[in-house]
């Protein structure tokens, strides 16, 4: 056993059951969270998102270049304009997009090779209305695909909604192509359920129409320190070739120790009469540099709930946000709200709690096994990573001041198609978190051709990606 391995195991053993018990119930809210954390580029405090742009403040800057058989550049930027909203522009390859986001209104327009899309959303105190409109490509002819949606908030934790899709080209002489009804129920931070029933009419390439009736129910909840999630769906397809399909998924995230998280999940799809059509089984273990906190436990979750409910009572119509991206978007919206002064401390407290409960993954391993009978593809994958925190420390050393710094990911994937034809893809990436808002990522991959690639005359592909991300207020 190498000294490093021995040290790792000792660290695991010496970081003991007391931590396990800490991981189970959510800790009581910390009244005073640290306002400053130290990063490689220096200490950072919680920014004041309520400050207006004068007149503009850069909040997003992203650049990505990918080089394989051709080179693709992507660039995105966003600025805060006074205290009125956020103006964004981006391009990726041939795609161009402009977007405006204010507290109640979102507008976006995009175009790519003659196809244009528009999006608008209005957030009222009790409802959210949105619609998307998209033109067709050269093969689809003139016309619009319209997707209006309406969500009505019945209580701080309950929304019901409906959406529809209309096609002005009227395939099969029918404008209305899809309709759906659904709900989202957030019972505090510990339980969330969502359901949807809907009907979709699709015209397949052969020219005939399938009517798909679908129902789905999903739940996610925190139970004794573990996060459990499940989904079930059933779909009846009526048309020339009717069938009934169903499926579901189950996932669990269980802290085995204060710094050790186990994750597992299964996803399956069935067809009546044909049995299991597809599956994906996944398991992962992750070792952290400080105590791990799940999104629905801890102070940040509690504060996210309180903030959402308070904002909703004020007419801002916000649901509880559990992901970093959702919370950042919510912070930005609320920083534009008329009542931003009253919400300012709640917004900052949530942000502080997020920083305080940051997860610093150091070592991880994930195994995936998947198969889909339709394309006849089976996939096995293994992913591993090792990270170095800031300030640098050995993985077995717990450090409450640690933040993510360096991370090296290596992944291997074997895809089997045809008669045992295997295509292996290796990829690795090196990520550098310069501070909470700034990342550099260098990625390399080498993908063997699949059977179909070989038939199409496509050989082995090597890809190099370089990305820079700046995200103010993350």
């Amino acid at each position: 056993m190498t000294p490093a391995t021995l040290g790792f195991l000792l660290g695991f053993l010496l970081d003991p059951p007391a931590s396990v018990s800490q991981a189970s119930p959510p800790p009581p809210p910390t009244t005073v969270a640290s306002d400053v954390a130290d990063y490689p580029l220096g200490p950072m405090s919680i920014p004041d998102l309520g400050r207006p742009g004068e007149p503009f403040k850069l909040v997003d800057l992203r650049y990505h270049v990918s080089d394989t058989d051709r080179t693709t550049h992507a660039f995105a930027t966003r600025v805060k304009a006074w205290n009125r909203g956020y103006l964004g522009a981006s391009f990726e390859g041939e795609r161009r997009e402009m977007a405006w986001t204010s507290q109640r209104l979102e507008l976006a327009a995009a175009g790519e090779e003659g196809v244009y899309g528009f999006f608008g959303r209005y957030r009222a105190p009790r409802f959210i209305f949105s619609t998307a409109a998209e033109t067709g490509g050269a093969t689809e002819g003139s016309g619009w695909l319209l997707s209006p949606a309406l969500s009505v908030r019945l209580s701080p934790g309950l929304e019901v909604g409906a959406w529809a899709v209309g096609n002005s080209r009227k395939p099969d002489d029918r404008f209305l192509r899809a309709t759906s009804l659904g709900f989202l129920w957030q019972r505090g931070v510990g339980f969330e359920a969502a359901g949807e029933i809907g009907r979709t009419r699709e015209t397949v390439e052969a020219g005939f129409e399938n009517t798909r009736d679908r129902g789905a129910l999903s739940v996610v909840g925190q139970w004794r320190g573990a996060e459990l999630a499940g989904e079930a769906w059933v779909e009846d397809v009526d048309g020339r070739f009717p069938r009934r399909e169903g499926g579901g998924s189950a996932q669990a995230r269980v802290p085995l120790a204060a710094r050790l998280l186990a994750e597992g999940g299964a996803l399956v799809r069935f067809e009546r009469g044909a049995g299991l059509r597809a599956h994906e089984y996944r398991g992962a273990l992750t070792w952290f540099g400080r105590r791990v906190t799940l999104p629905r436990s801890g102070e940040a979750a509690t504060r996210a709930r309180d903030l959402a409910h308070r904002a909703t009572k004020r007419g801002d119509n916000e649901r509880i946000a559990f992901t970093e991206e959702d919370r950042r978007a919510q912070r930005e919206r609320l920083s534009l709200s008329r009542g931003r002064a009253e919400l300012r401390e709640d917004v900052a407290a949530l942000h502080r709690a997020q920083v305080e409960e940051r997860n610093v993954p150091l070592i991880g391993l994930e195994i995936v096994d998947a198969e889909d009978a339709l394309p006849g593809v089976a996939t096995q994958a293994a992913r591993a990573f090792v990270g170095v925190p800031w300030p640098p420390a050995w993985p077995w050393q717990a450090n409450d001041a640690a933040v993510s710094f360096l991370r090296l990911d290596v992944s291997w994937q074997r895809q089997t198609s045809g008669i045992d034809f295997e295509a292996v893809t290796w990829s690795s990436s090196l990520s550098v978190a310069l501070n909470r808002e700034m990342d550099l990522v260098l990625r390399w991959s080498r993908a063997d051709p699949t059977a179909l690639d070989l038939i199409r005359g496509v050989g082995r592909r090597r890809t190099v990606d370089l990305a820079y991300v700046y995200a103010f207020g993350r």
Partner: protein
Amino acid sequence: MRLRRGGSHLDARPPGFGRRRFLRLTAGLPVGLAGWLGKGCSAGGDGTPTPTAPAGATPVERSPEDTPIPVPKANEGINVHPLRRLDADPAEQDPVIVPDLVALQVRSVYELGFDGLRITAPFGDRGSFLAAIPYARTARALGIDAVVVLADFAGFTLAQALHDDDWRGEVLRLYATVFAPAPEPVRPGMGGPGPRGVGRIAFQVLNEPTHFLGVPPDVYVHEFLAPCYTQLKAESPEVIVVSAAEVGNVDGPARVRAMLEAGLESVTDRVAYHIYSRAAIPLLSGNVRHLVWITESGASGTANHLPWVRDVFPEIHAGIEDATRIFYFDLFDPDRGVYRLLDIRAEGDGYRAVVESTDLYGFFADRVATAAAGRPLLGFDTLVPDIRAYFPTEADIRAYDEVWEG
């Protein structure tokens, strides 16, 4: 190699079928007798009707009692491998095609009254490609439809050729040139639905493309079948284009459905399924806009052969209304006790076929006897005195080599 004459070469006697009687029925008459005898001996349409209505029965009844007739096509199709030699020769330069082996298999197809023969002609394997030629030509000359599968046994050569816009035309022109022209019938009125009573030619574009090649169903339709259909119809409008089937277990129907939803029916003349599992039958029961050929169906294990054909074939016809023909898998392959009907062995300076699946063999032969209704039958050797007449010509070989080297 001496070509055996006379007799059926089948030395195992299936129960329920009198070999003596069969030999009597096939006691050869001179070629050229009464062409009308064979008229209408096949279904004349699209495959043999179901076992309850043997195709050959009606015309046979009109024949004089003592006039030999071609073996009535009382059974449906069968899969045949392009066997050309039993002994591998690593130093082989020009492919050796042993006439006895070709004759042995085609004789069995004829004597058992099959109305269709399905054989793979792999572009990527010169020997097997050339070997498929005499099988298809002889069968057609006997009034038996030939379904030539455009597929390789291994590798991606043909799939790459069919996908490549420049190469596809040459390769399909080769297939059309070599296989599409109708041969002269062995005698007038063999009852095949093709010109002058010969069997028709059908090209099946790839075999189980998702299973063998990793080609997804929609990709198959758009990037393989559609361009091949256009090209084949331009080369030889009389050719029947058959879409590829997918695996015969419950994985297959969803793939076939995906092909149909991707527009398969507009770029094929026949829709093909494979059925090796009863559970697949109800999943394939939806009506399609063409006739359906079950280009492979069978059961693993010799003891299961007869129950499969006797019980499941009618189930397939009942469950899939559009199915007009089922090709049994298979006549011969190297694996003992799995699917094959016959074994083929070297014996002395020749070869002989040994019936391995005796119950099924007897079942097929009984139906022939029933359809013949006691009429004497024209023997294979009478109709095909020298199978080398159907072997690849210099022009065939040159055409192949030009495309291969090009």
